[in-house]
């Protein structure tokens, strides 16, 4: 027995055989938007590429070029299935990058399209995806001005992967950054959460369940423009809570702005059908992916006006105040449960896995 060893010695002697934070290989959870994704960013990408715009860790970078303020963003899409109720990988990719630009307060100017195709992909499918990208870009009013195509061997891809990059221009007087959240600010979500993630999950093999849910993928730039026109510099932070869901985005903001975030479970809009699916599957809607939704952190005095503007937009008709920024517990997100108890909303370690019973 090791009674002579001190506790410290015991602790150092017994590293976990599989330290989840020090994986020898990439896991799916590294792309899940939770703690492992954050570790990749903090330990590999930021130290390697280190520069001022990157360090902002926003949805896109802001660049000052010849007197103009530009926003630049890129996003890759590997969704399966590639066609789903409410959209497809093409429209999703265009909306994703348009929204990343919008979250910088930018008006999108131009997009690129990079496709990685798997040998054997039906030409019909490629045609559908490309037409969908074109239609989505046209609806947004942004041209796709450059592109690239690569083909990988059969079995080495998943039909089609899409990358869309984009640039936009940030209007004068607009300064949106996750670091601008200050105590007293109000947190608004633009609609019902977790719809996209549950709609996609319902199509997965082994999990098929009947639902009328459709993905809510949509471009947010017009709603953002209207919000900025009305509430202007009262809008401190905009983020679209895609992978990792609302919980992960709020956690990131709390960390970057060194503020505390308080939310109320009761106030978070979740559609009945989504809540039902989450209850049955053992998932927390706060961590489920969204598309076509945003979180706005707004100065308290302008919160009513901001909410009113969002609600006049079709994409924001269920907008709601879900919480506030506080000075206490910087870096932590705390939720008041429906029965009045408090708990911390942390980043997920891995992917959200359903519980056994």
């Amino acid at each position: 027995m090791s009674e002579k060893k001190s506790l410290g010695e015991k602790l150092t002697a017994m590293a976990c055989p599989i330290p989840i934070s020090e994986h020898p290989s990439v896991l799916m959870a590294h792309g899940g938007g939770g703690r492992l994704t954050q570790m990749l960013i903090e330990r590999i990408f930021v130290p390697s590429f280190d520069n001022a715009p990157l360090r902002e860790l926003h949805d896109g970078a802001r660049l000052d070029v010849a007197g103009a303020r530009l926003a630049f963003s890129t996003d890759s899409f590997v969704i399966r299935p590639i066609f789903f109720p409410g959209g497809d990988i093409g429209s999703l990719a265009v909306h994703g990058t348009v929204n990343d630009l919008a979250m910088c307060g930018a008006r999108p100017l131009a997009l690129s399209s990079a496709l990685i195709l798997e040998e054997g992909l039906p030409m019909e499918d490629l045609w559908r995806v490309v037409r969908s990208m074109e239609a989505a870009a046209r609806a947004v009013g942004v041209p796709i001005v450059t592109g690239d195509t690569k083909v990988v061997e059969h079995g080495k891809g998943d039909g089609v992967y899409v990358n869309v990059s984009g640039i936009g221009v940030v209007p004068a007087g607009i300064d949106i950054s996750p670091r601008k959240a200050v105590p007293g600010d109000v947190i608004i979500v633009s609609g019902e959460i977790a719809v996209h993630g549950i709609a996609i999950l319902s199509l997965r093999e082994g999990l098929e369940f009947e639902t009328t849910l459709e993905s809510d993928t949509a471009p947010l730039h017009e709603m953002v423009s209207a919000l900025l026109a009305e509430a202007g510099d009262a809008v401190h932070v905009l983020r679209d809570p895609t992978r990792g869901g609302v919980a992960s985005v709020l956690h990131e903001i709390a960390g970057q702005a060194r503020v505390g975030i308080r939310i109320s479970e009761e106030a978070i809009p979740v559609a009945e059908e989504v809540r039902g699916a989450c209850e049955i599957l053992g998932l927390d809607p706060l961590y489920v992916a969204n598309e076509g939704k945003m979180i706005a952190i707004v100065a308290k005095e302008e919160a009513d006006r901001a909410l009113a503007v969002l609600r006049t937009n079709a994409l924001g008709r269920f907008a709601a105040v879900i919480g506030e920024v506080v000075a206490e517990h910087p870096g932590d997100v705390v939720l008041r449960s429906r029965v009045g108890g408090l708990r911390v909303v942390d980043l997920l370690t891995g992917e959200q896995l359903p519980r056994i019973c």
Partner: protein
Amino acid sequence: MKFVDEYRNLDDAQKMLGAIGRKVRRPWTLMEICGGQTHTLIKFGIDRMLPAEITLVHGPGCPVCVTPLVEIDRALAIAQRPEVIFTSFGDMLRVPGSTTDLLHVKAAGGDVRMVYSPLDAVNLARKNPDRQVVFFGVGFETTAPAIAMAVFEASRTGLSNFSVLSSHVLVPPAMEAILSSPSNRVQGFLAAGHVCTVMGFWQYEPIAAQYRIPIVVTGFEPLDLLQGILMTVSALEEDRFGVENQYVRSVTRTGNTRAQELLAQVFEVCDRPWRGIGVIPKSGYRLAPAYAAFDAASRFRVTAVTADEPEVCIAGRILQGLDKPDACPAFGTACTPEKPLGAPMVSSEGACSAYHRYGRGLAHLKAEVSR
């Protein structure tokens, strides 16, 4: 949402808390058996809203936590075989064995799939006749009928490429083991509502009588738990013992007799080692001789290496209700969900994981709740 919102109502919760506060006079230590109940208590912050006289300790009802390391190593050995499609509940995929876990086996090319039901695995076997489909089933009396049904179906239809690696444990022997321990501090139980939905609660009556202890069959929603606590505390304050049923909307004394018949047909009761606790007599299920052909461990002849549990990990004491997770010197420092030393930190139903995930140890929360 119907059948959910009525059990998460703030006003009713406050009323129930008030009733508990008026009832309680002396300090009591209660144990909730099931990890799902622990999860609800911590997720909704209920334990911290209770009067100071009531201490809740968390029971052994976390299937992942009590599955011995050797079973997980067996699963990993089978999952690495090229002819195998290895299926399990999502929660099992992340549990580390001695050298790796199922997610890493998957990353290295193993065909590991999450399913929601063992019958999905049976369907996978039908669709893939050239592959061996294995279902890794762990759990209590709650999940056992679904595994039994899958084995029964596979047997009935002559499905030769399906097998199960089954590690099922039973609640009543574990409760007896806890109560008969000289260091026991549990004075009342919240029994696991879902286990009782299947098995009924008649099995608990002799335990309650022998140890003169109240056992309240309790559900999983916040108001279920508050009511279960009120019923247990009332019995203790009034010096009553016996079994009571809070979860009447789901549980009867006899339980689901069809499920029990199926369990008796497919399984037989055996002695079973519990991770962190040791062997408990007659506390597990193994496949009955008539169904032994569906046992994956013998089909793939897996011999497993046993690995020692980390010495500092007090998982055994936590699973028996002797300590709370934040009493462990490694909690939140050497042992976190990213780097777990013991199973209760890995499984989302594990008490350590629930404490960590929902931010136990943050002083400001404690201060605010007590205001």
